[in-house]
């Protein structure tokens, strides 16, 4: 057709696509906006493409979301930072749409662009945009505005700064809770840019207002940012202004508020000196560890180690350790799991004696917990465990737990334990491993669930790496190769998978003498799935073995398969032959 030769109008291509009824086409073209921009060149991108996009804001949310994202990285295409401001117009509109994801993305992109813009442009273009949004009629604009102040503020002159602070203050008292929530969750970002004097006056006033809001949801978000805010203040100011609020919230009647405090408490400690931690935060934390509500205890238990790290060992032993004991017997399995995931880190803090005397029993009881997640969380910290209690004690209490988990009825649990086997092997050493765990590793190869069989194959590879080819030759290869005679084709497939993984580790010689014959033999399997997997494995072994072996063994086998009646087998065989040719050509 003539259009191909005719001069191309990139904008026309885009417009045409964006009018298409098929949303997938519209999405594709938005995703390739940068191509269009590059084809247009910077000038025409500024004068044609950006205005067009500013108008085209009535599309599906999905398209708008893609547009908001693309525009965030568009600065180079409009001619660099001095022209970055042209991108503000389309993004401003996207900041006001209904859909939350689109707005969030537009704000994110605006921040990206704003942080590159020249100071003058920020004052003349960016800040007015923020002010317009903050005065927006509908809440969407005002919600978006809250996330932009921290970009506009630093370069603003003094009077403008005063104005921006006052506008933010108004947003904190907006009529709509949606806006106040956004103001609360962005407060700490804005606070980070405000000068110390105003921080203590204006920003802290906003913080206090938000923490007294009549909507629980707003107060919650104010708490969420308190640690970040606290870190901006001098420790004594933090102790005077933020600490009382938080200690008060730690006894709030809403469990959500207490939960949030439990999450924030440790972070807040970093902003405070040791004294207020000891007198105020520690008691509050201990209360949260003993909270009535399991959700709160979960949050608090997860921070136990970090908290101990900032306390003196005496305080930790005196106040935290008794709670840890209680938590290890908590009625909620989720609390115990949360504890189990961090408790090992306490050992270095408490020192050897306290660890053996006090922590070890807790630790052993968690390892015997009836709930698999708890045990898994302990086992996953195995290296730490080993350092503390030593290998003998560990293996005694660990092994039954592992054996049990290895046969857990939830395959995800089995998967998790397989993934820890290489770590275990490393910690326990070869002797221990042979006795107890070797059998398990083979057993997983014939699991009912594919993911487990696959993980088991990978595990063998890791073991071979850990203990070396000689050990593998003795303890893995013979057992694995036996599977070749298994009557279940899925098991035979796992064998092929294992071979493709083991080949590179075992090296050329063993691969040729032991593994390759099994693969070639499998190419005569009656199941086509096995045969095309043979083709795949052969392809992967090309790089492992010598050129001569490739020509002598692999190629003939692939040639044979390429004439198979099954279309898939032929396809993969041809693929294999092609990669042989590529290797031959390049060498």
């Amino acid at each position, binding site marked *: 057709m003539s259009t191909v030769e005719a001069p191309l109008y990139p904008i026309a291509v885009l417009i045409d696509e964006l009018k298409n009824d098929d949303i997938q086409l519209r999405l594709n073209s938005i995703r390739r906006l940068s191509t269009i921009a590059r084809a247009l060149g910077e000038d025409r991108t500024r004068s044609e493409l950006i205005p067009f996009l500013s108008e085209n804001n009535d599309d599906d949310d999905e398209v708008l979301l893609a547009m908001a994202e693309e525009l965030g990285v568009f600065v180079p295409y409009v001619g660099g930072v001095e022209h970055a401001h042209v991108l503000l117009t389309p993004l401003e509109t996207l900041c006001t749409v209904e859909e939350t994801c689109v707005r969030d993305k537009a704000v994110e992109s605006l921040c990206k662009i704003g*942080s590159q813009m020249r100071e003058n442009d920020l004052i003349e273009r960016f800040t007015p945009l923020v002010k317009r949004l903050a005065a927006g009629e509908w809440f969407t604009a005002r919600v978006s505005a809250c996330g932009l102040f*921290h970009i506009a503020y630093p370069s603003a002159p003094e009077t403008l700064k005063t104005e921006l602070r006052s506008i933010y203050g108004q947003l904190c008292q907006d009529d709509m809770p949606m806006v106040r929530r956004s103001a609360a969750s962005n407060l700490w970002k804005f606070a980070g840019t405000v000068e*110390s004097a105003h921080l203590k006056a204006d920003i802290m006033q906003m913080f206090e207002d938000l923490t007294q809001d009549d909507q629980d949801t707003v107060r919650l978000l104010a708490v969420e940012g308190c640690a970040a805010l606290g870190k901006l203040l001098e420790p004594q100011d933090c102790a005077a202004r933020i600490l009382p609020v938080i200690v008060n919230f730690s006894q709030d009647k809403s469990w959500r508020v207490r939960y949030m405090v439990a999450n924030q408490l440790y972070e807040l400690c970093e902003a405070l000196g040791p004294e207020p931690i000891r007198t105020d935060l520690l008691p509050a934390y201990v209360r949260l560890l003993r909270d009535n509500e399991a959700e709160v205890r979960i949050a608090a238990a997860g921070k136990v180690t970090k908290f101990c790290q900032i306390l003196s060992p005496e305080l930790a032993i005196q106040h935290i350790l008794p709670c840890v004991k209680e938590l290890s017997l908590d009625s909620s399995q989720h609390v115990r799991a949360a504890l189990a995931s961090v408790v090992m880190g306490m050992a270095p803090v408490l020192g050897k004696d306290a660890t053996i005397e006090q922590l070890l029993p807790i630790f052993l009881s968690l390892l015997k917990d009836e709930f698999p997640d708890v045990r898994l969380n302990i086992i996953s910290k195995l290296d730490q465990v080993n350092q503390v209690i030593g290998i003998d004690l560990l293996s005694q209490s660990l092994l039954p737990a592992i054996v049990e988990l290895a046969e857990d009825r939830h395959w995800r649990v089995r998967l998790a334990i397989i993934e820890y086997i290489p770590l275990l092997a490393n910690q326990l050493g070869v002797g221990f491993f042979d006795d107890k765990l070797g059998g398990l590793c083979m057993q997983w190869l014939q699991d009912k669930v594919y993911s487990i069989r696959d993980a088991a194959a990978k595990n063998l590879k890791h073991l071979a790496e850990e203990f070396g080819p000689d050990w593998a030759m003795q303890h893995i290869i013979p057992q694995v190769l036996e599977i070749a005679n298994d009557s279940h084709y899925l098991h035979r497939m796992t064998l092929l998978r294992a071979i493709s993984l083991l080949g590179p580790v075992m090296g050329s010689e063993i691969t040729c003498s032991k593994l390759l014959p099994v693969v070639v033999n499998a190419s005569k399997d009656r199941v086509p799935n096995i045969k095309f997997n043979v083709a795949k494995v052969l392809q992967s072994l090309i790089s492992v073995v010598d050129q001569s072996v490739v020509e002598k063994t692999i190629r003939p086998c692939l040639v044979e398969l390429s004439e198979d009646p099954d279309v898939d087998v032929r396809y993969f065989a041809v693929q294999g032959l092609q990669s042989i040719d590529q290797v031959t050509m390049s060498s």
Partner: protein
Amino acid sequence: MAVCAAGNRFVAIMLKQILSKLPRKSQKSDSLDSAGLDSGNHTSNLSNGVQCTNIGNSITSRLSVVKRVSSAVFPASIMAGVEAVEPNLSFKDVSNPQKQNLFISKLNLCCEVSDFSDPEKASSEQDLKRQTLIELVDFVSSGSAKFNEPAVAAMCKMCALNLFRVFPPKYRSNTSSGEAEDDEPIFDPAWSSLQLVYDLLLRFISYSSLDAKVAKKHVDHSFILKLLDLFESEDPRERDCLKTILHRIYGKFMVHRPFVRKAVSNIIYRFVFETERHNGIAELLEIFGSIISGFAIPLKEEHKMFLCRALIPLHKPKSIGVYHQQLTYCVVQFVDKDQKLANNVIKGLLKYWPITNSQKELMFISELEEILEMTNMVEFQKIMVPVFQRIACCLNSSHYQVAERAHLLWNNEHILNLITHNRHVIFPLIFPSLERNSQNHWNQAVLNLTQNIRKMFCEMDEELLLACQRKLEEENSQLIEAAEKRKLAWEHLETTAAAFKPAATNNVPPVKPATPLVAC
């Protein structure tokens, strides 16, 4: 007014439900009363109906708790002359002038909230409290209560202390894996008394001689906000009580109406734009259904805003099934009052049209049908193209229920009439779908329906049908060509683009650090 009529219906139903669940305890209550009185020192005085100021020790201690709580909340002037009456007396045992004070004492007694950690203690306390609440309900329903300011204050305080609570977190299953999602709602162990408190609150709000001017000081914005928070309850019985009460508040307190509407809008915004989790949307919409049907015509701009900014976006959340019936009712009420709104509603439906959720799609088609049925020709013509583009997709749905439901639109006489009049626009939109269905839809019922519609078209305007057929064949042959052209255009673009070098990259001024200065 329609609001009140519907409200009365709610109240009647709710009372019947509550009363039917109450144990009949009238005889038993006497024995309980006398048992309670034995602990006092002045049994004889009491039984003679003489006012008693010296109270038994055990009771004094309880009362002092109550007094401490009350005086912290209320100025002494309001409480003056109130604390003198022993709350465990029965209404029939005190003189008429004293009844009012006894009423307040009993309300104060009920402010104590049981702790359920000790089940045995809790159950005896609960019994006493339930008994007192029943007496209060009886007293109010007998019409002898006077809601002066102290009484209103005591009532609101008692309701606030009992009702306004934080719901526990969503239950996590204790059976190791979270895959078996357990959707049993949690029921508050104190429900039996909560129910009575709700009953009392309802009777209070609906009390004929209640002066809204006095009551609004205590049934204030914060009271209403807390009440609205309770709509999050997982217990449908509780939400049902709340629905009736909020509706009555809306009816009784004219001053609060704008506030209630605004607060409910905020709940809806949060639900739609932030959390997508709320248990009480259906109930809130039910109240709004009758509020909307009471709106005067022409509709105020504020109310139309509510339709466009709250109700239409409510079509987006996944859980729409829970409240779709109530939502449709609200929307229909709006369109009924102003036909022009049909357009906004339909545009909204098309905007939020579900792509992968067939159950939701079925609801959308039903709603669309309901709205189209109310749309006149002029409004219809403004939106028929996008509507029938969407319907064309539904006709082809591989979910047979969706396809079937879309075909059934032709059975609606009003819609069929609209289609027939605009067939020159609609036929060409629908025709390709019909062809595609007859060629490869898997479901026999759908195939039959497609054939019917095709026949209908043929009888209506055979010439047009043939024209569509020709056009389709033409388009099909162009389809591959168009795709090829598109591919070439993009390839061409890519090569042009490859030559692009950002002119500015070499002379970019040093980028200012994004992280601003931080005090300390």
